[in-house]
C-alpha cells in the first residue's frame, strides 16, 4: 500500500543495490516524532496545530484551538481582539530557523555572503575539503537574487564579478602574474599554455594606456583539519569523478585543491576527461579503461615544495602573508586613471595624495634656559605727564594691561603688609623691623656685601621697585593726575557715607582734584579740626581718592546703585514672640492656668481654608499666612531676649463676652484674690449644693474685667496673682534679666573679638 502511494518521476538512478530487498516501510505506529527534549509529539493535522500542539495535546493552552468566546459584561467590556500572525505561531516559528525568528540576525541586505563570488568559491572549496564533497552544492544553486550593499557599491564603481578589487593594473604586472600562475596551471592543465600564448600575442598590440582589473583574490582557507585522514588527503571528488581526471603531478601544500579552484574560477579546461570515479584509496573501477594509472599511490618528496614561498603563485596567495600592496610605486602620478573611470557621484579622487605632515623637531633649548615666565617692563601711563586720565583709562581697560597696576590699587592681595598697614592707618610696629637689626654690625656688613654682589646683576629691576615705593607727595600727585579732568561726578563710591560732613569734605576735595587744583587737599579740609585729625583725614582722603579713582571704578558704569538698601543683617522672625517659659512653668506648677499660661497671637488662616471651613476671612486682603513675620536685626541681642516688647496683638478682637453667667463666674472679686485652685474647690463645693444641668456646665468664664485687663496689657503687668506669689515671680524675672544682661555682654564681647 505504501509503495503505491509513492509516485515516481523521472528516471530511476541506478543505485546498484537493486538486488537488495527493499526495507520494510515503518509502520504507522512507529512513525513517532520527538521534540528536542525527547518527548513524543503527536501530529494533529496541519490546520489543528501540526506537531507543535503540545501542552496535553492542545495548542499551547488547555483549551487548545477553542475559539475565544465573546465575553462582555458590565465591568469588563469586550476588548478589541486583533489577531496577529504571531498569535498563530508556535515556538518553532519563532526559533532561529523559523519563519519569524526572534533573534537578531543580519539582514540579507547587509550580509556580505550573498553573491560574493570569491566567498562562494571559498565555500565551494571548503565543500571540497569536507569529508563529503559537494556538500554545499545545493546552497550554491539556490542563491537569492539580491545583492548586498557592498556588492552594489562595488558594481556602481565599475566592478564586475570575477574581477579583483583595487586599482587597475598595467599590462605588464598582469602578465607577470600570469607568468607566475602559469606554472601551476601548466602542470595541472594543458590548456593553460594556450591562454598564455594568447597573452603573449596581446602584448604586442596592447597600447600603453590599457589597464586591466586585478585578479580576484580567494580568501585563505583556514579551515582546520577535521578528519583522521592525513595531510593533503582529498575525498572523492564528484567533479573529478564525472569529468575523469587523473591525480595531479604536483601537490602544493600551500595551495590545496588548486585544480578544483581553478575549475571553479572558470579556467578553461582543454582535453577530454575521462569519466569515472577516481580518487585516492578508491582504486580503479572495473569499468575504467585507463589501466596505467597509478592505483596504489606512491608519494615522492619531489612533489612537495621544499621552500616556503619560493615562487610567487599566480593568484598571490602567499599562505599566511597579507595581501601585497597593489601599487608598488607610490610616486605614480594620475592615479585616478588606474582606477576605473566611474567614481561615485559626488566624489572625486584626490589629485595629490594627502601631504604627509612634516614634523619638525622642537628647537633645542639654550643651556641656560630657565622655564620661568617673565613680564616685560611696562609703560607707566599714569606717570607720563602728557597723557590725560581718560586716555590712561582707555589704555588700561582696552587690552593687555599696558599699565601694571600700582601696588596700592591692585587689590588687597597684591599689597604687602606695610602697604596694608598704611592703608589701614595703623602705626608701624615698635621694635626691630627686620632681622637685620638683630644681627651684630659686622655680620650685617658681611651680609650686605653679599647682597650687593648679587644685586649687581639685577640692577634694573631693583631700580624699578625703588621707583614704585611712593612717598605721600607722589601719591597726592598721583591722585591729582587720576582725577584731573574727570567729568563723571555722580555715582562714585562714597567711602565716608556714615559721616556726612566728612563725606562732604571728601567730595569737595574730589571736585577740586577734578579741576586740577594742586593744593586741593589742604583747602578742602576743615580748618576747625586739630592738626592730628587733619593729617589723619588727609591721609584717608588721598588713599580713598586713589583707591576709588574713576579708572578703577570703570566697571561702575555698568552697574547702578541699588534702589533699596539690602540689609543682610536682618532675619525674619515671627512678630509675636512667645513669652518666658520659666514664668509659665512656674505658673503650671502652681496650677495657675489661665492668663499666665495662655498667649494669644494673631494668626492668619489661608483664604481657601476659611472658604472650606465656611467662615469669613478674618483678615481680608492680608497677604500673610500663619503668624505674621517681621524683619529683625540678625545680630540683635533683642532677638535672643524673649521679653515681650509689644505683645499686644494689633488686631486683637475682643472675644465675645458671654452674656450668660455660668456657675464658674461666681464672685469675681474672690477670683482676683484667691488662688485658682481654691476657687475651683469653692466652685465644686457650690456645685455640690446646686447641681442642675451638667450638660451645660463648662461655659465661658470670661468677664468684662478680664478682657479689659488683657487688652491693656503686656506680660508682667497683666499678672495679677494673689499677693503671696508676687515676690517669687519678681525674683524669677529679675534673675532672667540678669542672665540676659550677662549674655548680651558676652555677645558684645564676642562681636568685638570678631571685628
Amino acid at each position, binding site marked *: 500500500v505504501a509503495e503505491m502511494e509513492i509516485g515516481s518521476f523521472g528516471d530511476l538512478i541506478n543505485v546498484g543495490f537493486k538486488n537488495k530487498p527493499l526495507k520494510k516501510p515503518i509502520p504507522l505506529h512507529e512513525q513517532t516524532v520527538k521534540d528536542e527534549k525527547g518527548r513524543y509529539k503527536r501530529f494533529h493535522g496541519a490546520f489543528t496545530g501540526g506537531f507543535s500542539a503540545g501542552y496535553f495535546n492542545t495548542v499551547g493552552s488547555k483549551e487548545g484551538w477553542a475559539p475565544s468566546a465573546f465575553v462582555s459584561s458590565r465591568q469588563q467590556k469586550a476588548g478589541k481582539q486583533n489577531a496577529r500572525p504571531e498569535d498563530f505561531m508556535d515556538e518553532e516559528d519563532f526559533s532561529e530557523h523559523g519563519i519569524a525568528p526572534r533573534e537578531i540576525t543580519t539582514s540579507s541586505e547587509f550580509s556580505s555572503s550573498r553573491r560574493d563570488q570569491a566567498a562562494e568559491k571559498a565555500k565551494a572549496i571548503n565543500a571540497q575539503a569536507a569529508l563529503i564533497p559537494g556538500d554545499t552544492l545545493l546552497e550554491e544553486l539556490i542563491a537569492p537574487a539580491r545583492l548586498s550593499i557592498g556588492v552594489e557599491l562595488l558594481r556602481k564603481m565599475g566592478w564586475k564579478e570575477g574581477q579583483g578589487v583595487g586599482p587597475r593594473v598595467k599590462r605588464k604586472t598582469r602578465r607577470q602574474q600570469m607568468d607566475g600562475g602559469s606554472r601551476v596551471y601548466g602542470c595541472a592543465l594543458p590548456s593553460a599554455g594556450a591562454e598564455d600564448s594568447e597573452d603573449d600575442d596581446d602584448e604586442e598590440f596592447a597600447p600603453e594606456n590599457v589597464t586591466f582589473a586585478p585578479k580576484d583574490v580567494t580568501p585563505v582557507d583556514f579551515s582546520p583539519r577535521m578528519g583522521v585522514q592525513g595531510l593533503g588527503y582529498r575525498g572523492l571528488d564528484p567533479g573529478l569523478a564525472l569529468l575523469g581526471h587523473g591525480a595531479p603531478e604536483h601537490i602544493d601544500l600551500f595551495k590545496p585543491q588548486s585544480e578544483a579552484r581553478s575549475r571553479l574560477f572558470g579556467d578553461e579546461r582543454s582535453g577530454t576527461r575521462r569519466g569515472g570515479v577516481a580518487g585516492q584509496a578508491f582504486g580503479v573501477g572495473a569499468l575504467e579503461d585507463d589501466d596505467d594509472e597509478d592505483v596504489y599511490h606512491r608519494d615522492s618528496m619531489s612533489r612537495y615544495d621544499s621552500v616556503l614561498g619560493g615562487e610567487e603563485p599566480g593568484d598571490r596567495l602567499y599562505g599566511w602573508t597579507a595581501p601585497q600592496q597593489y601599487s608598488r610605486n607610490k610616486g605614480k602620478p594620475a592615479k585616478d586613471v588606474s582606477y576605473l573611470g566611474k567614481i561615485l557621484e559626488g566624489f572625486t579622487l584626490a589629485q595629490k595624495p594627502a601631504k604627509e605632515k612634516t614634523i619638525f623637531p622642537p628647537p633645542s633649548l639654550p643651556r641656560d634656559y630657565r622655564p620661568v615666565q617673565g613680564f616685560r617692563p611696562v609703560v607707566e601711563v599714569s606717570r607720563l605727564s602728557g597723557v590725560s586720565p581718560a586716555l590712561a583709562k582707555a589704555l588700561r581697560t582696552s587690552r593687555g594691561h599696558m599699565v601694571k597696576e600700582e601696588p596700592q590699587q591692585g587689590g588687597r592681595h597684591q599689597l604687602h603688609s606695610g602697604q596694608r598697614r598704611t592703608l589701614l592707618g595703623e602705626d608701624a610696629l615698635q621694635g626691630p623691623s627686620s632681622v637685620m637689626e638683630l644681627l651684630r654690625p659686622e655680620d650685617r656688613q658681611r651680609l650686605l656685601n653679599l647682597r650687593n654682589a648679587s644685586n649687581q646683576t639685577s640692577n634694573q629691576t631693583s631700580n624699578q621697585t625703588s621707583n614704585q615705593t611712593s612717598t605721600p607727595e607722589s601719591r597726592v600727585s598721583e591722585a591729582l593726575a587720576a582725577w584731573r579732568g574727570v567729568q563723571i561726578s555722580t555715582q562714585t563710591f562714597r567711602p565716608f557715607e556714615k559721616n556726612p560732613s566728612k563725606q562732604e569734605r571728601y567730595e569737595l576735595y574730589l571736585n577740586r582734584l577734578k579741576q586740577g587744583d594742586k593744593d586741593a587737599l589742604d583747602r578742602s579740609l576743615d580748618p576747625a579740626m586739630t592738626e592730628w585729625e587733619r593729617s589723619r583725614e588727609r591721609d584717608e582722603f588721598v588713599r580713598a581718592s586713589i583707591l576709588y579713582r574713576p579708572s578703577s571704578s570703570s566697571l561702575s558704569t555698568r552697574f547702578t546703585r541699588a534702589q533699596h538698601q539690602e540689609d543682610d543683617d536682618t532675619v525674619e522672625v515671627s512678630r509675636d514672640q512667645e513669652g518666658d517659659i520659666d514664668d509659665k512653668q512656674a505658673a503650671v506648677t502652681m496650677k495657675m492656668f489661665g492668663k499666665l499660661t*495662655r498667649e494669644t497671637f494673631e494668626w492668619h488662616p*489661608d483664604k481657601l*481654608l476659611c472658604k472650606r471651613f465656611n467662615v469669613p476671612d478674618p483678615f481680608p486682603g492680608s497677604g500673610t499666612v500663619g503668624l505674621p513675620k517681621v524683619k529683625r536685626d540678625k545680630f540683635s541681642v533683642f532677638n535672643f531676649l524673649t521679653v515681650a516688647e509689644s505683645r499686644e496683638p494689633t488686631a486683637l478682637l475682643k472675644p465675645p463676652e458671654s452674656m450668660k453667667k455660668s456657675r464658674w463666674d461666681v464672685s469675681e472679686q474672690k477670683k482676683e484674690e484667691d488662688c485658682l485652685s481654691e476657687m475651683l474647690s469653692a466652685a465644686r463645693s457650690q456645685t455640690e449644693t446646686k447641681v442642675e444641668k451638667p450638660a451645660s456646665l*463648662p461655659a465661658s*468664664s470670661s468677664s468684662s474685667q478680664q478682657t479689659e485687663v488683657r487688652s491693656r496689657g503686656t506680660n508682667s503687668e497683666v499678672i495679677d496673682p494673689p499677693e503671696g506669689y508676687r515676690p517669687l515671680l519678681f525674683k524669677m524675672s529679675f534673675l532672667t534679666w540678669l542672665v540676659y544682661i550677662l549674655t548680651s555682654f558676652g555677645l558684645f564681647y564676642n562681636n568685638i573679638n570678631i571685628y
Partner: protein
Amino acid sequence: MAFPQPRPQAPQLPQHLLRTIDCQQGAVRAVRFNCDGNYLLSCGSDKSLKLWSMSRGTLLKTYSGHGYEVLDADSSYDNSQICSCSSDKTVILWDVATGQVTRKLRGHAGKVNCVQFSEEATVILSGSIDGTVRCWDTRSRRYEPIQVLDEARDSISSLKVAQHELLTGSVDGRVRLYDLRMGQLHVDFISSPITCVCFSQDGQCTLSSSLDSTVRLLDKSTGEMLGEYTGHKMKGYKLDCCLSSKDTHVLSCSEDGHVYCWDLVEGSLSLKLPVGKAVVQSLSFHPSETCLLTAMEGRVQVWASEPEEADEEAEKVF
C-alpha cells in the same frame, strides 16, 4: 397640683462588656466610632484599616493601601469617606463603599499621628511627628496642603476640629487652639507633653491629657483650668482621653490596663474599668449613647451601660 419632677437619671457608665472583637490585624493602634456611632474603625499595625459593625461586631470592609501601620482614622459626616494616617507619612482618603483609595496625600516629613475631617469633610487635617499640621483640600485636585501650621516645636500628637476651631496638642507641652473665625491662635502651656486633646460636646472646654499622668479640663476661651483628673498612669505611651457623650465624665486610657472614668465636675474617680493586663491603647466614646470602645493589643472591646442580655430581653418584649 404639680407632679413631682422625675428623679434625674443617674449618669450611666459603660461598665459592662458587650463584646470583644478580635481584629486580626496586629496591634490595634486606634479605634474610632464613625460620626453616628453605628460603625467603628480599627487601625491595625498590619497596615490595614477595618470597618466593623458596632451592633453585630462583624467585619464589613478592610482598607489596605497604607505602607506601614495605621495610626489614626476618621470618618466623614456622611459616612461616605474615611481618612486615615499612617507611619508611612501619608494620609489616605478612602471611599467607604468600594474600599478604593480616593487620594493619597504625601507631604509630611514623618509619621502622621492624627487625622481629622473638618465638619463638612472639605478639609482633612493631619498632625505629624514633623511638628506640622497640614490642611488638605478634599474638594479640589490639589495635592499640596492648603496651609501648613508649623507653629508647634515638636511632634503633633493629637488634633481635633470643631466647627471653625482647630485644637492641637503637641509634645512641646502646648495646646494650641486655632480660631479661624477670629484669626487667632491661643497657646496654652501645659509643660508636659500632650498625648490627647478633646473638645467638650458643648464646645466650651478643652480636655488635654499629658504625660505627667494628668488630664486637665481647660476653659476654651480663657485657658483657665476647670478641673484636673489624676490617678491613672500615663508616662510613656500616647494614650487617648475623651469626654462622655453628655459631658458628665472624663475618661482616659491608662498604662495599667484600666480605663479611668472621673466625674467631670467633682473630679472624683467614679469608675475604674478593668480592660486587661496590657496598656489600653485607644478609646472612643459613642457620640450619643453610653457606649465605649477600648483597644488593647489586637482586640477591641465594646462596653455599654447595660449588659447585652438586657438588650435582647428588651427587644423580645417589644
